């Protein structure tokens, strides 16, 4: 069994050797999982596996069995309210073509769950595996900083 965005899925044996990225896209229609390279170097297929950022193109369905997966579709509220990170990406101008965005947001989320007050260089380090060809990363780093302040306000 795999939990994806809070829903439980029983896995047919025939699916076990399918790429996780393909299963998410083709069988669950979670097309927010983007495919940029298929060899684990661009980060656009990033998902959270037990809150760790992983490249789903480098995993098979069987590697995910028994684990909890979150895709970009799973982080906003049922009613469409955005996660603070999503809102920050919008406000900071961190989105251009948007193809890297789901992976970026999830890598950033994995970071913030671990480190509530990352420095800019820690943010850059955490996003190192995610390529963005459009933005030069500057406003993405801004967005993650902005979200950290909202998600984990510092007690004065």
């Amino acid at each position, binding site marked *: 069994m795999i939990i994806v965005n809070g829903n439980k899925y029983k896995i047919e044996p025939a699916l076990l050797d399918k790429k996780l990225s393909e299963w998410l*896209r083709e069988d669950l229609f*979670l*097309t*927010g*999982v*983007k*495919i*940029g*390279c*298929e*060899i684990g*170097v*661009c980060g*656009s297929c990033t998902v959270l596996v037990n809150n760790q950022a992983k490249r789903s193109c480098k995993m098979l369905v069987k590697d995910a069995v028994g684990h909890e997966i979150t*895709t*970009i*579709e799973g982080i*906003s509220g049922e009613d*469409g309210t*955005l996660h603070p990170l*999503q809102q920050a*990406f*919008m*406000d*900071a*101008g961190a*989105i*251009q*073509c*948007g*193809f*890297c*965005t*789901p992976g970026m*947001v999830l890598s950033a989320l994995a970071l913030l769950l671990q480190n509530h007050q990352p420095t*800019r*260089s820690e*943010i*850059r*380090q955490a*996003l*190192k595996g*995610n*390529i*963005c*060809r*459009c*933005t*030069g*990363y*500057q*406003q*993405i*780093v801004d967005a993650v900083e902005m979200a950290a302040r909202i998600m984990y306000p510092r007690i004065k």
Partner: protein
Amino acid sequence: MKPAFRNDAYAKVTGAAKYTDDYTLPRMLHAVPLHAQTASARVISIDCSLALQSPGVLRIILAEDIPGSIKFGQIIKDYPTLAHKRICSTGDVLALVVAESRAQALAALPLIKVQLEELPAIFDPEQAMRKDAELINPEYGSNICNYHRVRTGDIQEGEEEAELIIEQDFSTSRIEHAYLEPESALAHLRSDGVMEVIGSMQHPFSTRRFVASTLGFELKDVEVRTVPIGGAFGGKDDTAALVCARAALCAYLLKRPVKLTYNREMSMRESYKRHPYRMQYRMGVKKDGSITFVKVRMVADGGAYCSVTPWVTWRSTVQCCGCYEVPNVHCDVYGVYTNNVFSGAFRGFGSPQVNFAIEQLVEIAAHKLGMDEIDFRRKNMVKQGSTTVTNQVLDTHKVSLQEVMDKVLSEIDYETKRAKCSFGDPKQDKWYGIGFAISYRGMSLGAEGVDFNSAILNVQPDGSVLLETGVHENGQGSESAMILIAAEELGLPVERIRYRLPSTSNIPDGGTTVASRGTLLGGGATTKAARILKGIIAETLLKEYDLSAERFEKGQILTLEGQTICTWEKAIALCYSKQVYPYAFGVFQAPRVSWDEETGHGDAYFTWVYGCQAVELEVDPKTMKVTLLNLVAAHDVGKAINPAMVKGQFYGGLAMGAGYGLFEEVPLADGGVIPTNLHQYKLMRATDLPEMTAIIVENPDPTSPSKAKGIGEPTLEITAPAIANAIYRATNKRYVDQPLKLRP
């Protein structure tokens, strides 16, 4: 700063945005291409019998199956949808396998047996230019795809006046666009006989021409719709359009929807790259620092197909002396056919190459004269009313070169930091360097193309507005910019305006969204449409209230003096009740430009932009590794419509420009692309870049109805030479080949 506005951000940040490959249609089939992987050969036979027996395979399509024209092209029709009898490039596609699933189609690829007779190939442009060279494109009759020149003043006089002459060769590399989303297309033949296509392409109208030509259809029978695309940077024109044409071909022949999605390997193998240049410069200067002449010969490797090589090299020609006044110029530029993977449009479009050379050349000259490189630039740079090397007087807009340069140099504190540069000091264990570069850039297509665009504003009975323009959203935020322009003109909140899903069947051909012309042209058309619309509403109000509507603000319509006439909604309701459509079609025609091929003279572009960038860096003398410490840029954008997105263009351009300077290059073997995926093609990552500073300079442009000019390309055209100049001050060595490979 105000939060960024983007009409598509919500969909993109939630994963709801659907890019081409995210769509599926009932009964959809999948196609994959078979690449030639040989640069020059005659096709003897293609045996598909085994592949056809492979599970799920329905058909294998060859050039003979094409109902329309096999070849098409934007300038010269030399680019084959499927290679026919003759292979000219490793990226040529020989066949398309169509199967029930993508995996099945891919599995059948190696089963196709191709018999080829390899022919001699030419990979060196200089060799291709020789009179006795084999013709790459015999129908065209020459391996010189195009030739441009400039003849200004008297080069002999310039030589005689010169007190110092500098000769220097420069070279630049072929680079990959590396848009994050590889090409994809989905086509289906509708029941009304229209071939409908969505695709990851940046020019729907060009795509429509490619599709129509391949199928032998009229333009009205092909409809190309726009969906989000994962980056383009100039790179999703010809190849992406052909991917769409191939999907359409499959859909036409099989009468079922067909998706053709490229993986990264296919994309890198086939897609066109930035033109590599070789440039030979000779420059004369006087002791007082004035430039007396520039003589230059440039050869651009266009590869196997023409694409837009004549246009790219034309920009290099117009801007051959950088942003300097030079009285005597002799410039020859050649675009050349070879059997290499072909070259085409790439953000910058012929300027990054030239600036890489010129912005180093002026520093070499200043250094030899013992002159400050800032003073040398100040002395020679174009100013208000200057005449460019192509004889254009710069007087239609504010020439802000000095302003952008001063802003950057003061922001980065250039003169103080320059004194700290290492110049390869053996006693230091880290070498520090600072450098900068400046440029001007002709806006939009210039004399290389027909330049106009349109916009439709269609107000609904409830007062909400549908907007559409002939500009294409490539990810840069052009739709948002158009909405902001319309909102400001009409005095409405952005929420009341929807950018309608664009289609080639709905709005006239607005040309390609290249050359940083989106905001300028599309914004111009939107402004014009808004003004027409306001005129229609004002006329209706005048009849009803006998008041002259002059101001549209905050949802209210007012007289000049500020008397409220009525709300926007009421005015719109009134229009409908009076049988008047609040609907406007606006056209922006670029002001006239001119060009004389003989002399290379003319008003090449109707307006220009100006920029300056500076960089600080460190070099490790042991490893010669370069670490960027700081990047600062100032660009005149006319008017910043969406400041956060404008800054995004700065940062993205700087990052791409820095990668171009430091390491980007696509190595070839026998004309074919060696890197098969992004693990072999280094791109800037978040950790490779320093914090950047973007300085927006606004001098509203009188030639632009929205006052805005472009920003997409200027931001990456001078980063590489700024880095080269900083590396010189760090190491005391000049590197004249891009990418800058430092040697211990």
